[in-house]
């Protein structure tokens, strides 16, 4: 609380009564001069782009923050799918016992698929009395099978010209002189190992 003493009040009255010097012109001139001076323009940083909603991040920043994770997630999902597909292609088909039946007359090889017995091993199955020889094979695809093209029909225009021989699979054909195999003096029969039959079917009671 302001408790000014009486002499202070007297001083205040006396000072308020002091005549002001006539300096109006000089004061106005000074004011005019100061107002004529252009204010230094403060370079304010450009305001950030406003979010239309007015909340949170500005529009472009929000878009970036949303778009980048979305792109990353989709890329990751695509990669996972690709990897899965690749694995599916690479995973070998469970080994199957295929009885090899070759029919010389037929142009294609038909291989009936017999599923591998679950509990029995390969050696156990060899001891079976069945005549099927278990062979672990990779499934044949169409590209692996030899394709036998039909013989070209003789065209009337080309009858006089000798028609080229039909295309033949060189891999399956035996051409030229057969090279002697192995070391001289050792016959093919020497390589063969004859397994003694332990099959119960062969035993006579």
């Amino acid at each position, binding site marked *: 609380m302001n408790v000014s003493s009486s002499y202070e009040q007297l001083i205040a009255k006396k000072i308020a009564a002091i005549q002001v010097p006539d300096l109006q012109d000089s004061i106005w001139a*000074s004011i005019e001069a100061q107002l004529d001076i252009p204010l230094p323009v403060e370079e304010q940083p450009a305001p950030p782009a406003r979010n239309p909603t007015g909340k949170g991040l500005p529009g472009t920043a929000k878009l970036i923050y949303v778009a980048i994770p979305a792109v990353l997630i989709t890329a990751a999902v695509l990669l996972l799918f690709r990897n899965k597909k690749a694995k599916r292609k690479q995973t070998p088909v469970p080994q199957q016992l295929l009885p090899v039946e070759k029919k010389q007359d037929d142009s294609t090889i038909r291989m009936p698929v017999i599923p591998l017995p679950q509990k029995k091993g390969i050696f156990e199955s060899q001891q079976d009395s069945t005549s099927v020889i278990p062979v672990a094979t990779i499934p044949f695809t169409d590209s692996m099978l030899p394709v036998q093209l039909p013989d070209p029909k003789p065209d009337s225009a080309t009858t006089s010209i000798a028609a080229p021989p039909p295309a033949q699979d060189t891999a399956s054909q035996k051409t030229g002189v057969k090279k002697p195999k192995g070391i001289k003096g050792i016959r093919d029969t020497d390589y063969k190992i004859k397994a003694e039959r332990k099959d119960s079917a062969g035993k006579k009671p």
Partner: protein
Amino acid sequence: MSVAMRYALDEQDAAAIVSQAFVKMFRSIHSYNSTKGSCHVWLKKILVNEALDHIKQRSRFSTNELSEAEEAPVNNDIVEQSDAAAILDLIRRLPPATHAVFVLYAIEGYTHKEIAGKLNISDGTSKWHLSEARKFLQQKLTK
């Protein structure tokens, strides 16, 4: 101008304070709110703040807490007999901070709390400055 004269050291200083205050007023006229007070009050506030800035430029205000000194009584008759110009001259001879506190308290009617807020000092420091001013005036006026 009379308000500026209380804070200024001389007439030229007072004129500078007034011109600066008017320039500030013209430049910040857009911030004037008539609901908060009249234009005259607003201008006086700007003028006082400008005068205090002038005083602050003259010396640094001590932010240390100063103990309040005992008040020295002054005879009213002496003050009444004294010339106004002479009293004002005595006030101008006070140290800047003491000068500001005395004018704000004794002439403008501010409280110590308000003075402390304006000058960024404590209430006790404001009281100390007032006490110092009174002692000085009492010494000079009684001589």
